[in-house]
């Protein structure tokens, strides 16, 4: 790891100030992506601004129909939260499938969203749940937030403080894991909103990162069942091809994962 300077911020304003005065600063939350990247010398921020000591940015609240998750809430806390397990069980389950227990004890939802890894789990859920990403400056709809592989709408120095969404009628998540890395080779979050509309978020498969599978959304809106997907096919042209799976293989995986997500939705 190259040399760096560690700062502990105690408020959002202080974090923004330290970041602004750094040459090439980076926010540090769980460190479960940033530190491995720094160890490999793929990132070399001059300054690290630790956000984890800022009060009020972690925890889950369920208020009527609205679910809100603080940006610094760890994957473990999301997985264990009782209110969330009732309001949106698939999301709580999903958090329990991220990496391993040690990663879940430290990694945060805000860090995962800001990173927008093309195989990360949370982005698929945020798209499918039509979530809003809250920052220290504004609110951004999930549809506008994920702009490409490792790219988001966040500006320099902007901090993810929370996400929120309206609870849905039913949702499910299924993930085909790469057995070595545990990231998704294809992961699908399927959500049926209370007005009957359907949103499908797909991760691990797209060349540009997470995306919505609109053809399946339409088919499922008129018939919420795995069979409704028999006539749908994923176009493999925009999908990733790598040593683990070809684009055509991933296209099929997306369909299979979508069927399973619909079947397991609760």
């Amino acid at each position, binding site marked *: 790891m190259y040399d760096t300077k560690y700062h502990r911020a105690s408020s959002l304003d202080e974090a923004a100030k330290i970041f602004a005065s750094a040459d090439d600063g980076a926010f540090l939350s769980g460190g479960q992506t940033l530190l491995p990247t720094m160890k490999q010398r793929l990132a070399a921020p001059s300054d690290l601004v630790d956000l984890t000591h800022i009060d009020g940015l972690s925890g889950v609240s369920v208020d009527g129909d609205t679910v809100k998750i603080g940006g610094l809430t760890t994957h473990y806390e999301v997985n264990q939260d009782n209110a969330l397990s009732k309001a949106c069980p698939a999301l709580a389950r999903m958090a329990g499938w991220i990496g391993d227990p040690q990663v879940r004890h*430290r990694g945060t939802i805000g860090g995962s969203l800001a990173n927008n890894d093309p195989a990360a789990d949370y982005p698929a859920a945020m798209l499918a749940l039509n979530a809003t990403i809250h920052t220290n400056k504004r609110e951004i709809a999930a549809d506008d937030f994920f702009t490409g592989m490792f790219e988001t709408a966040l500006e320099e120095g902007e901090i993810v403080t929370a996400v929120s969404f309206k609870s849905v009628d039913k949702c499910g998540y299924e993930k085909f894991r790469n057995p070595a890395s545990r990231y998704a080779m294809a992961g699908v979050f399927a959500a049926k909103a209370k007005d009957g509309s359907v949103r499908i978020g797909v991760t691990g498969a797209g060349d540009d990162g997470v995306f919505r599978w609109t053809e399946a959304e339409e088919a499922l809106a008129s018939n919420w069942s795995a069979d409704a997907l028999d006539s749908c096919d994923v176009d493999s042209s925009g999908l990733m091809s790598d040593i683990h799976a070809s684009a055509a293989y991933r296209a099929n995986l997306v369909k299979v994962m979508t069927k399973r997500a619909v079947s397991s939705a609760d």
Partner: protein
Amino acid sequence: MAKVSLTVNGKNVEKDVEDRTLLVQFLREDVNLTGAHIGCDTSQCGACVVHVDGKAVKSCTMLAAQASGCEVTTIEGLSGGGDLHPVQAAFREHHGLQCGFCTPGMIMAATDIIKRHGTKLDEATVRAELEGNICRCTGYHNIVKAILDAASKMDGAAKVAAE
């Protein structure tokens, strides 16, 4: 330089270290506790697992500076005295190690698993929970046996203590 002040196995430790020092390096090189091992540079192997404020974490994926103010427990501090901790004893009894490189991380992960799952622990849960700990020798079978046995013995001991 960062001033790092924390508790390691119940003792206060205060040192000035480079900001980029990983917790595992700090423990091994500055505190001379070489139980936590470094088995990879990708945060995947789990040889470095320690407890920070009671939770299992990969000490290669946390800065010493982040741990300042925390309570850290390493394999050296697990038993707290002369006798082996029940999980250590079970690893010995069930031949849960061969070369021993993964063992400190396995045992620190195992105690965390038992703490979180208690009596509900079954084989499938142990295997799923060991996702982040890699062993190149044993084939995991005896590790899983050791953890299940330790869990049932610890549960028994807790019941006796409660009576």
